[in-house]
């Protein structure tokens, strides 16, 4: 029945054209704010998830993480494994890492953190810790007697500013005694301090593979993990399959799989907060539209009765109100998109600064569409109820209402 839509459009367009401009603008402004509000929080959340993902890839897991199989402590014959992995298509480079428990002592303070041994020439290809040197330099290869520490291990001279136990603000060039879990104790010169801003990465220390071998007292062909960087064009999940097909027996996880266990919980929490915020926004939208249409229809009781009296179907009248709701929502959404666009420009230039990094809210098209769809849906329902109710009134009593 397109007839009815046509008459509804006729009525709605006249009603909007002859109604108050300021009132309409106010309604549109409120819906714009509601929409912006609905979008902002999920954007900040997805921005922070994105930041966390990037940090995880760049400083912790690279694209693929290979770990000892179930029940094993080490990955054995790691030299051969590296060769195997490096031959798999889509692999740019693999880096073996060997973590060993240790206690660091300097400035009369001690810190227990895992020390990771690595091969710098491999490592710079798979993580970006070397780009985050706050002070000093990354290993160039084969260094002995030197150690790199994360910023939280180094800490501050004013230890009240530390988040964790630290070495009281040790500087590059200072000495540091390390007691390894195997009983060996060595003295190292601090070669550099790195600051990735990832809590996990910044509370570690690094030595070269050669240094580890000297501590163990012989060649080490065992790793606690192997990190694999894939070529940009290759999906880590596909490369992972390649690794398994090439006969890698160890536990292979893409960065996303590695992340889930730890982050899933916090993403879930984010999701709940996000849901509550969205609900509140929608409730505001419902209330606004409900009040707007109620007032409008109440003021037009007589007009509604006249329309019914001359034979305009009640459904047409309801539709004419819903069309007005649609116009308000469409303009409101456009206004909201403009606001979101402006925020995007602003945040790109002025990211939100968090202790663990700079966060740029990510406005995802899917979220925009989803939130707009919800906004329209609840608004239509909120407009329908008063329109339905008020158009139900008997003609004559409504006409006398004036």
């Amino acid at each position: 029945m397109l007839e009815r839509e046509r008459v509804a459009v006729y009525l709605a367009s006249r009603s909007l054209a002859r109604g108050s401009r300021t009132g309409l603008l106010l309604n549109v402004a409120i819906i714009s704010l509601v929409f912006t509000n609905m979008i902002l929080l999920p954007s900040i959340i997805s921005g922070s998830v994105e930041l966390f993902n990037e940090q995880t890839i760049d400083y912790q897991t690279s694209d693929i993480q290979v770990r000892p199989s179930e029940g094993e402590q080490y990955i054995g014959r790691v030299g051969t494994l590296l060769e195997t992995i490096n031959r798999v298509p889509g692999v740019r480079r693999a880096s073996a890492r060997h973590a060993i428990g240790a206690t660091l002592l300097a400035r009369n303070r001690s810190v227990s953190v895992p020390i990771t041994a690595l091969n710098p020439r491999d490592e710079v290809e798979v993580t970006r810790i070397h780009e985050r040197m706050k002070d000093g330099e990354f290993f160039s290869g084969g260094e002995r007697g030197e150690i790199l520490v994360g910023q939280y291990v180094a800490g501050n001279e004013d230890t009240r500013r530390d988040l964790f136990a630290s070495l009281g603000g040790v500087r590059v060039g200072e000495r540091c005694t390390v007691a390894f879990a195997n009983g060996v104790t060595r003295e190292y010169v601090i070669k550099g301090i790195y600051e990735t801003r990832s809590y996990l990465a910044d509370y570690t220390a690094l030595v070269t593979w050669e240094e580890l071998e000297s501590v163990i007292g012989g060649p080490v062909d065992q790793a606690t993990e192997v990190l694999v960087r894939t070529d940009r064009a290759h999906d880590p999940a596909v490369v992972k399959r390649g690794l398994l097909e090439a006969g890698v027996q160890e536990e292979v996880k893409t960065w996303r799989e590695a992340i889930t266990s730890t982050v899933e919980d916090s993403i879930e929490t984010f999701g709940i907060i996000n849901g509550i915020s969205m609900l509140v926004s929608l409730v505001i939208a419902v209330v606004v539209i409900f009040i707007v249409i109620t007032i409008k229809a109440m003021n037009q009781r007589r007009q509604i009765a006249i329309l019914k009296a001359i034979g305009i179907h009640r459904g047409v009248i309801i539709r004419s109100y819903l069309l007005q709701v649609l116009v308000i929502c469409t303009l409101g959404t456009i206004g909201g998109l403009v606001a979101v666009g402006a925020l995007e420009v602003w945040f790109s230039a002025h990211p939100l600064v968090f202790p663990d990094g700079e966060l740029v809210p990510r406005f995802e098209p899917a979220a925009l569409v989803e939130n707009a769809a919800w906004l329209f849906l609840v608004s239509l329902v909120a407009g329908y109820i008063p329109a339905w109710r008020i158009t139900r009134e008997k003609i004559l009593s409504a006409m006398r209402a004036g």
Partner: protein
Amino acid sequence: MIRVEGLRKTYRMGNVEVRALDGVTLEVTRGEFVGITGPSGSGKSTLLQLVGLLDEPTAGSISIQGTDVLRLSDDERTLFRLNRIGYIFQDYALVPDLTALENVVLPTLARGATERDGTDRARELLRLVGLGERTDHLPAELSGGEQQRIAIARALVNEPALLLADEPCANLDTRASTRVLDLFASINRELGQTVLMVSHEESHRRYFGRIVRLQDGVIVDDTGTKPSPG
């Protein structure tokens, strides 16, 4: 055309009962031009509203063109009004958000006319009632007489089989009244439209083929030539 039997309408206001209609039986054949007169408060508007399906009687029956209209649903009544009845309200009842012209165009759109055809027809009718200009003004910007003529044009625009007019000339001068009544008479004659019109004016009597006189909610007089049914 119209068959009304034992029609009663009682308004209840608190403990007071007002019997606006107290048992009205009336039959009107197609093509009649019936005048309804009677003192103020005698129930003329009430009768017209009931026949126009704007209200429901306390008792009695109404059938129009063979349809027992009291059995229709609300939506069916709306359609019935749209398709068969033109109603001129005592207080005009124009849509305040629509201009004079749009008020007249609207019923044609609801009947499925294109906006262009509807506008042409509306302009023609507004011209016939003597309102060729000021058609782009909102009702609030027009005089009572002008509004009344818009209401008349609106009621006629779909060429309804039944025209119900509640004092349509109350706010018109003699010239405009004559024009409107001549218009009613011509459509009554040429299109065979049935007309029920409320009026106190002695001067209108010559237009009516029949005059029904109400008093205290009952018909006290029913005189006139009844044309043969057709």
